[in-house]
Every structure is written in C-alpha cells, then in structure tokens.
C-alpha cells in the first residue's frame, strides 16, 4: 500500500532534479538552439561570478534573516498577549492569523497599491499627518518594503505556533515560580523562553524553507528592481530561465538554490526526526 506514495515521490524527486543537473552542464539557450553542447563548469562559473548573484545572495540573506527576526520576536510577544485572559480572545486570534490565508499575489498587490503607494496609500497619509513628505517605498526602499510585506504574511504563522506552545505551558509551574518570588522578567527568561525553545526552532526552520523561495511578492511588486535591488536567488533563476531563456545558466542557479536549501533542511530534519522518536 505504500508503493504508490513512494513511487510517485521518487519519480518527482529524481527525474526533474537529474534533468536540472544535466542541463546545468549544457550550453542551451532557447533563443539560440544551434549553439549547444557540453559546457563543463561554465554555467556555474558564470552564475557564481556574476555580480547579480552576489547581490541576489545578499538580498536572500537579508530578506530571510529580517523576516525571521521580526516574526519570531513579534510573534513571542503577540502570542503572550493573546495567551492572557483578554476579552474577545477568539476574535483577536482570528484577526491576527488572517493574513496567513491571503494568497501572496493579493497580499503583495494590496500592500503595493493601497498601503505603500506614495500618492494615495495609507502610509503616505500617515507620514503627511506627521508633516513628512510621502515616501515612494517600493522605489527607494524596495527590499525593506518586501520585508514588511512578507513579515505581515508570516507573523500570523509564528504567532499561532508560539501561542499553541504557550498554551501547553503548565500553569502550576508558573505559579510555583511566582511563589518563589520570580518577577515577570525572570519568569520570561527562565520559564517561558525555555519552554518555547523548541517551537521557536520549528518556526525558524519552517519559515526559512518558505522564505528562501519567496517569489510572487517580488514578481508583482518590484520585479526584482530597481536593478537587482530586490532580486533574491529564486527570482534570479526565474529571470534567467523564463525571461532570458538561458536553460543552462538557470539550471546551474537551480542546483545552487537546492544546495543552499538543503543546508537548512538538514537542521530541520534532525529536529523533526528527534520528535518522531519521542
């Protein structure tokens, strides 16, 4: 009974990946089909030495790390806030997790137009209220704008996971700590944070998998620009494949993206695997 699942996943995993590897060593451009053949390491050489790769790599790092920092830190506090006996907790929870269900293209376009637009957007209205000229966010701070949009999409996920973890914190343990004279600060650092450690790790690792592959948000807001200012590795490979038709180069980029993601995946697999034994 296990055979169909394994067979399907095996084919899905091996065939395309093998083809990517194969193409990555070929000179193959859809616009120039005559000039083809074995390329050796040339595709990798050009991809890795292209300045746009360095920028894209840096952008990927900045994007991933900033969104992680924002969502985890804000998620901890938001989770703790919703964990309090507040009035209308259910509704607050629903409002907070809602952005997670908004499809990426809608989230990106709503933010691009109605929030960040320098002429009519909400942010422009807020800044003018404070006497500051409206800022063309996506032109002047493209990567920062994308960090904001993606953080808005992922904060609900972090909050929801951390809230779930907080709710499993033993009430009596907290009580015992406060009887022993623990204040809110030491309670947070010695009881709450250690209890959340595993959930935080899971949030970081799962978000990382998705954040390394951010695509739609960039495509519909900045198209990676201006220049390469908001291009990440995923978008760079897409650009090379479907806009430049450079099959060989894009495949080399794809292999590099797989290697980068696998480094992260190794850590995640260990954590989940440990949990499976428990």
């Amino acid at each position, binding site marked *: *009974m*296990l055979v169909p*699942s*394994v067979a399907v*996943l095996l084919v*899905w995993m091996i065939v395309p990946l093998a*083809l990517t590897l194969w*193409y990555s060593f070929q000179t193959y451009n859809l616009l120039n089909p005559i000039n083809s053949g074995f390329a050796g390491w040339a595709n990798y050489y050009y991809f890795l030495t292209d300045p746009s790769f360095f920028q894209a790599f840096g952008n990927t790092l900045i994007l991933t790390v900033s969104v992680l920092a924002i969502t985890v830190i804000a998620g901890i506090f*938001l989770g703790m*806030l919703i964990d309090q*006996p*507040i*009035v*209308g907790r259910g509704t607050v929870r629903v*409002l*907070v*997790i*809602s952005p997670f*269900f*908004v*499809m*990426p*293209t*809608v*989230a990106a*376009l*709503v933010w*691009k*137009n*109605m929030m960040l637009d320098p002429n*009519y957007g*909400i942010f422009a*209205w807020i800044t003018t209220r404070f006497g500051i000229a409206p800022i063309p966010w996506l032109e002047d701070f493209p990567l920062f704008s994308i960090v904001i949009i993606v953080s*808005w999409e992922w904060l609900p*996920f972090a909050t929801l*996971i951390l809230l779930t973890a907080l709710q499993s914190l033993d*009430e009596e343990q907290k*009580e015992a700590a*406060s009887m022993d004279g623990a204040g809110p600060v030491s309670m947070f650092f010695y009881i709450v944070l250690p209890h959340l450690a*595993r*959930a935080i790790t*899971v949030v970081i690792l*799962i978000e990382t*998998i998705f954040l390394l592959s951010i*695509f*739609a948000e960039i495509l*519909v807001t900045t198209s990676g620009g201006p220049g390469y200012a908001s291009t990440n590795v*995923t978008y760079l490979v*897409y650009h090379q494949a*479907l806009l430049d038709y450079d099959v060989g180069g894009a495949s080399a980029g*794809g292999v590099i*993206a*797989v290697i*980068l993601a*696998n480094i992260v*995946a190794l850590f995640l*697999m260990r*954590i*989940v695997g440990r949990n*499976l034994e428990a």
Partner: protein
Amino acid sequence: MARAVTPQRRWTFTILAWIVALIIFFPILWTILTAFKSEGDAILFPPAFLPPHWTLENFFEVQARSNYFKHFFNSVIIAGGSTILALVIAVPGAWSMAFSPTRRTKDILMWMLSTKMMPAVGVLVPIYLIFKNLNLLDSLSGLTVVLMLVDLPIVIWMLYTYFKEIPVDILEASRMDGAVLWKEIVYILVPMAVPGIASTMLLNIILAWNEAFWTLNLTAANAAPLTAFIASFSAPEGLFWAKLSAASTLAIAPILILGWFSQRQLVRGLTFGAVK
C-alpha cells in the same frame, strides 16, 4: 488554579491586544471596504475610511471585463483536484505506515519530508520544458498534478500523525466481540479516520489555493487560477484599486473562512506534527 488577574490588568491587555489585532487585520479590512467604493472614492486623499457611496459595481465589472468566475473555478478545480489526488495516493501509504510499521518506516517518512525541502526553483527549468513539450503549459490537468506532487509529503505526514492516534487495541477488542472485517471497517475505522482525513483535506485545499510559484509560472490566460489572475492586475490595471479590491476580496474570502475553522490543524500540518 488560575492566577488572580486584576480587572485593570485584564483591560489593559484587552485593549492592547485589540489594537494590535486591528492593525494586523487592517490591510484585509481596507481591501474589503475598497471593493465597495467607486474608483474615484478609492483614491481619495486623505482616504475615506467607509465608502462614501456603497456600490457593487466593481464585482460586476470584474466579471464582465475579465471573466472572473472562469479563474475562480480554475482555482476550485486545481485546489480540489490536487487535494483529492493526493489523498487517494497518500491514504493507503499513511495507513500502512501507521498500522504496520517496519524498521524502515521512520526513514521513509523522513525521506518524504526531505522532498518538501527541495526549492521549487531547482526544478523549474525541467518542469517548464517537459510541460512545453507535452503541451501541458497553461493546462489545468498539468498544474493539478504538479500541485498534488508538491503537497503530497505534507498530506502523508498529516495523515500519518492522525492515523497514529487511532488506538489499535480497539480493533482487537471489536474482533473479540465478534466483529467481521467489513463491520470493523465501517463502524470502527472509518469514523475514527474521517476527522483526520477531513482536516488534512482542509489544510491542503488552503495551501493549494494560495500556491503562487507554479501557478504563476505554468499558466497563462486559459488555466490561470486566482493567484495568477490577480497578478495580471499589476501591470496595466495598477490604479483600478476598487476593481483590484473586489477581485481580491472574492479570491481570499472562501479561504479566509475555511482557514478560521482550521487553526489547530494548521499548526499540526505545517509543523509536521512537531507542535500540536
């Protein structure tokens, strides 16, 4: 048992939480409100919070101009189809791993999870070329199969964690009481397995509905689901905010409502059972 909470503290936290929640929800609320404004009112500055003149015109316009419901049903077919396909393949597999595990079960599960870690862009080129050669670009069937493959590991994992919780003892007990196989399946197994399968289905529909890498890269005008259809608003129709909002509202409403009902399953499914 509960710690004493002063009313003052309770209200401070309540107000704080509501303010934060409303700020986070604001972009969605704003989209819904803008959908009911005229195009002129949508770009008033300073912005008008409530529509000065409520109108349904945008919803009709979006349908008339770009055949909105075609894309809506594309989304339904792709999300629903890929989920059902994935379940058909995954249920027997997860079932056998949960009830007759072998020494290799854990390795197989971990390997399945690892396929989920492969970034989509790593196989974009071959999948695109295969689709091109097989004339599958911009086709519903091709995209449905790809999304099924992308989500299969999560489906198997979720089903596995649910099936794992079905107590095996109860089966033996029913056998002792003289239940024949079909009775065992109909009265014992199905009622206990259905909630898990339903939750898995729900989460997968949400994920497939919002998937925005393959849907953007493998479709054009014909098979585009809502993710790709909305993206096409970005270039030429940039400033038609009311229509963009109307299309967006219709696109996110069904999933938003489904999502509110599946918060718990979401935690479980997305963390591969690591946080429950």
